[in-house]
């Protein structure tokens, strides 16, 4: 009945091996979420084959309700197929979500790793910087930057990534600085391993668990943020995105609710899936503790 001396060490120890996958697969919601994400990715990848219509080409059949012949989710104000737009919109949302999370996690790992490993003034400076970024209201700032500098897919990704890394950085820093004191790290150092090798080979693999979890949550947050920008009419006009679909649907709420319903559902379900997956990953990687935001 003895408690482990270091719960984190134990949690990390358990994160390896087949137990993790087994635990993940046991969660029915996680499997559902994973399934949905898979479906969205598949639809996005196969968009030209499954859309049935060119999402940018409309015609005179404007605002047909769902279940109309040839347009089972209806058409929008310009006669474009809502299903085709939703499927193509998935491409933008996924891209923004995944690329942003990748950026954010990369910056976060580097900053958090350096801060946590070296400590001292490096830590102080880097953490002050990340604290500063956390103080900034993300959505407001993204809104202003995009409004001022003009929209574009890469600008959106860049802005969201720049505003998303601090959380990962702080998490990585916490893990790294506690790991730094672990015996196995000491052992490696005594064994003559350099700082870089130590960070890359011994420490980082051990903070992989929290990184994967925040990464998944970052994807969800980025998709949501992009949708907010799109809703404000600040999405990339040359790509169809769920957020900008909602923006266009706004003025037709009364007469064509389906223009709002389907992209909104797509956002909600996709974000939900990534969040659920993140939670499940967390539970599976780290059964003893829960991530606090």
């Amino acid at each position, binding site marked *: 009945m003895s*408690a482990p001396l270091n719960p984190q060490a134990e949690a990390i120890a358990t994160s390896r091996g087949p137990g993790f996958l087994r635990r993940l697969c046991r969660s029915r919601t996680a499997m559902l979420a994973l399934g949905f994400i898979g479906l969205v990715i598949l639809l996005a990848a196969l968009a030209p084959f499954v859309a049935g219509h060119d999402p940018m080409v409309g015609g005179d059949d404007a605002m047909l309700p769902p279940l109309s012949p040839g347009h089972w989710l209806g058409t929008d104000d310009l006669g474009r197929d809502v299903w085709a737009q939703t499927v193509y919109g998935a491409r933008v949302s996924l891209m923004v979500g995944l690329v942003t999370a990748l950026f954010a996690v990369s910056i976060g790992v580097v900053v958090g790793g350096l801060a946590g490993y070296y400590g001292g003034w490096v830590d102080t400076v880097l953490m*002050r910087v990340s*604290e*500063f970024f956390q*103080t*900034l*209201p*993300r*959505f*407001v*700032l993204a*809104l*202003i*930057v995009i*409004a*001022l*500098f*003009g929209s574009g897919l890469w600008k959106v990704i860049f802005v969201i990534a720049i505003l998303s890394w601090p959380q990962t950085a702080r998490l990585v820093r916490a893990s790294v600085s506690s790991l730094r004191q672990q015996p196995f790290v000491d052992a490696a150092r005594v064994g003559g391993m350099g700082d870089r090798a130590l960070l890359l080979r011994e420490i980082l693999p051990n903070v992989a668990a929290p990184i994967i979890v925040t990464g998944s949550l970052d994807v*969800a947050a980025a998709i*949501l943020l992009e*949708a*907010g920008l799109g*809703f*404000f009419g600040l999405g990339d006009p040359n790509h169809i995105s769920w957020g900008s679909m*909602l923006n266009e*649907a*706004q003025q037709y*709420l*009364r007469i064509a*609710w389906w223009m*709002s319903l389907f992209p*909104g559902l797509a*956002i*909600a*379900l996709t*974000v*939900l899936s990534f*969040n*659920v997956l993140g*939670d499940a990953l967390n539970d599976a990687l780290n059964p003893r503790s*829960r991530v*606090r*935001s």
Partner: protein
Amino acid sequence: MWFVARRLLHAVPLLFCVVVLNFVLIAATPGDPVTILVGDFPAPPGYVEQVKREFGLDQPIYVQLMRYLGHVLTGDLGYSFANRQPVSTLILGRLAATLELTLTALLLASLLGIALGMLAARWRGSWLDSGVQGIASTGYSIPDFWLGQLLILVFSIWLGWLPSQGNMSVRGAPEGFAGFLDHLRYLLLPALALSFRYLALIARITRAAMLEVLSADFILAARSRGASETSVMITHALRNAAAPVITVIGYNLGFILAGSALIETVFGWPGIGRLLFDSISRRDYPVMMAILLMVSVTVVLANLATDILHRAIDPRVGDR
């Protein structure tokens, strides 16, 4: 007291950076604010220069920054040329509406969130728990502006129960309690839409914190002394779970304020959030800067207040 002073001191450079960043960001953008003043037809040449002089836009950028910093320190947030009003007046005029909306949403989110989280933790694994967890995941995933649209669609358009725009009856609300009720009708939908995300977050954190506390060793110890379940809940569990919950509430205060930009726009709520959106499209620099500053300051102050509160609850904080 020392703790508060130290935290305050810590916040100063943060705020300074926020001010500078805001200024640099906005100053570095393309486009000329003066053009927005010009209407549909060509402006007379002298007019543009006059406006520039009037607002100091003809000065070099660092002079503008110094001037701005000086003004901020003296509480002067500048003059909005799109609205032709001092920014502080403009913001003050909108503050009440925003505070009302955000505080209601926060209150709603906190009360419901904590209640739901506690219930879920108490009956862990029950259908109630699953329900709360469902709400928590959903609430955290639904775009709040879309939720606002759905609420309008259902409660305003289809059912016709509640108004969808503004914060009071157009033709003058009734006096007294009836006026309060009238006002409530306008407040309900936007407050709900704004609070849902935070309700979800708070419910989730409360549940997790309660579960963690309930499985803590000192709870077992209290039970071993014969303490009743109610007493265990009240003296130990609630108090210990409060810290993370308060942290989440406090740290999200500023973000609720920011989130109200979308909700205020969807519901036509005459607050700061909508003012922000209007100033973005009008490129009203001083107002944008002031609002960004205000939200950032709120975040910093909310964090500060949270830390202080945290310390009041937990004697360990600040001793390290």
